[in-house]
């Protein structure tokens, strides 16, 4: 455990001291502040717009940064050959991977917290209510980011950063609509079902069962209408997200343990 923590802390330190990461956070914060300008232009809908756009930007930017950092995390260690001094140390390869995931998770926690603070300040400016549902929504955004961290590390355990990035973004995009895919029944323009369309529908439904259901983490509707999210829902979504991340890391460890470092 101590080794995992050491690798995690080192990863976190590297990310925090990385100027690209700092620039991305600054950019995200600047965009968040623009939300304030947009919401002030809306007619009596400032609060609703601020919540809606604020959560969207927090979620989207956090996921994009997680993808960007996540797909490069292992690759950089291999490309810069720093991994050559780590693997011969008395650690298992899965410990290295989990340490990396831990470091990135800590980094993303800081990122989400920074954006949450910016959001909170904006709420103060327009005198809007920052209720429990906002905290719950931001927490679920973080859990969604952890799922993406797992997916990014899974793809990067056997693929290039570019391909891993594309695949992870694809999973993110489709994952947001998985709840609709699981009930998919394609029909022709005339409203008929054909065997071919049924096969495609079945395939899509199969894919939907493998991909993460990221729609669980989109709680904007609750927040906009000031409805507190049930704790059982938060717990279920958290459990699902952490399990999905753990499965991704287990599969990534399987690939990683068989990898040659040339």
């Amino acid at each position, binding site marked *: 455990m101590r*080794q995992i923590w*050491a690798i995690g802390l080192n990863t976190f330190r590297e990310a925090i*001291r990385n100027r690209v990461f700092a620039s991305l956070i600054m950019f995200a914060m600047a965009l968040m502040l623009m939300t304030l300008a947009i919401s002030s232009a809306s007619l009596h809908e400032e609060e609703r717009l601020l919540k809606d756009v604020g959560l969207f930007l927090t979620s989207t930017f956090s996921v994009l940064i997680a993808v960007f950092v996540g797909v490069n995390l292992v690759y950089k260690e291999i490309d810069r050959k720093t991994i*050559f*001094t780590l693997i*011969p140390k*008395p650690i298992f390869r899965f410990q290295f991977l989990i340490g990396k995931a831990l470091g990135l998770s800590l980094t993303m926690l800081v990122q989400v917290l920074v954006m949450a603070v910016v959001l909170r300040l904006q709420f103060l400016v327009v005198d809007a209510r920052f209720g429990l549902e906002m905290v719950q929504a931001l927490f679920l955004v973080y859990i969604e980011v952890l799922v993406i961290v797992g997916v990014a590390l899974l793809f990067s*355990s056997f693929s290039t950063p570019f391909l891993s990035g594309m695949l992870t973004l694809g999973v993110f995009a489709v994952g947001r609509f998985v709840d609709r895919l699981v009930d998919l029944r394609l029909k022709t323009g005339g409203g008929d079902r054909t065997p071919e369309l049924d096969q495609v529908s079945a395939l899509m439904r199969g894919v939907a069962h493998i991909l993460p259901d990221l729609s669980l983490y989109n709680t904007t509707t609750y927040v906009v209408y000031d409805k507190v999210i049930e704790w059982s829902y938060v717990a279920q979504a958290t459990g699902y997200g952490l399990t999905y991340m753990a499965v991704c890391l287990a599969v990534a460890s399987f690939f990683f343990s*068989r990898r*040659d470092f040339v």
Partner: protein
Amino acid sequence: MSTPALSVTDLVKTFDLGFLGSLPGFGGLAARLQIKGIAQRVQAVRGVSFEVQRGEIFGFLGPNGAGKTTTIKMLMGLLRPTSGSGTLLGHPLGHREARQRLGFLPEHPYFYDYLKPMEFLDFYGQLFAMTAKERRQRAAALIERLGLSHAVGRPLRKFSKGMVQRIGIAQALINDPELVVLDEPMSGLDPIGRKDIRDLIFELKQQGKTIFFSTHILQDVEMICDRVAIIINGQMRALGPLTELLQSPTQQVDVVVGRLPEEAARRLEGLAQGTVRLGDAIQFRLGDGADVDTFVGDALGAGGRLVSVVPHRRSLEDLFVAEAKRGAAP
């Protein structure tokens, strides 16, 4: 007799290249397909076997691309051998217990450039589950020993190549290892830096540690190694103590004689493999089996003056070049 610090038997590494071969777990399929572009195979190490005894300095020699680094990477668990086996400190390759007592410096090391020396060594110390106090003491001692005290406040990205090499050696020694594996430790160092590393290697040997290092700088090997192995084209070409390997079957002797009368000079030239006129002296090169005593006696008897007698032993460079040529021959 104690178990060797390191041993490998028939170690083979074949790389499956191409798209399919690059996918983890598909190497076997790639090997069976053998279709150019989809799967290609390159055999980098072809049945290498050797042992390194405890407490010795072992030099692993070979030209660029000979398979030195590939062999070392298999020993360090960075590459999976295609076939063959090995042990490190009595444990199978990759065993955690062996890695706990192992230090490794890779070739052209590159480290986390945002870390300062103490942070850097502390991180590696944590991987060995050392206590905070142990890590602090050991890191401070190594920084002092490797002459990096002036740079403790500097992040590694501001280190020169020689300093990176030194901090790399420090991380290899952080756990006070029994076996130290150094891949091209003198690479990129100036003469003073190379001498420092040689002194350090001697110091480690005096502490009872085993040192295995690869290099292509023959002078360093001749100066410090107890035994060497020469690998060329992935195959072992020579292995043994330097004194044995350098025993030449074609020993030559250069005899320089001055003031030799012309008639005697011509007669003696007939007995030599070659001659070189050096002002009023002549250098005779006598081949293997020549009776040097009789030759010198004749020269002195003819009125000559003996200037020097220099036996030419086979150098490591001669051996290395000969083996490299043999390895390159079809």
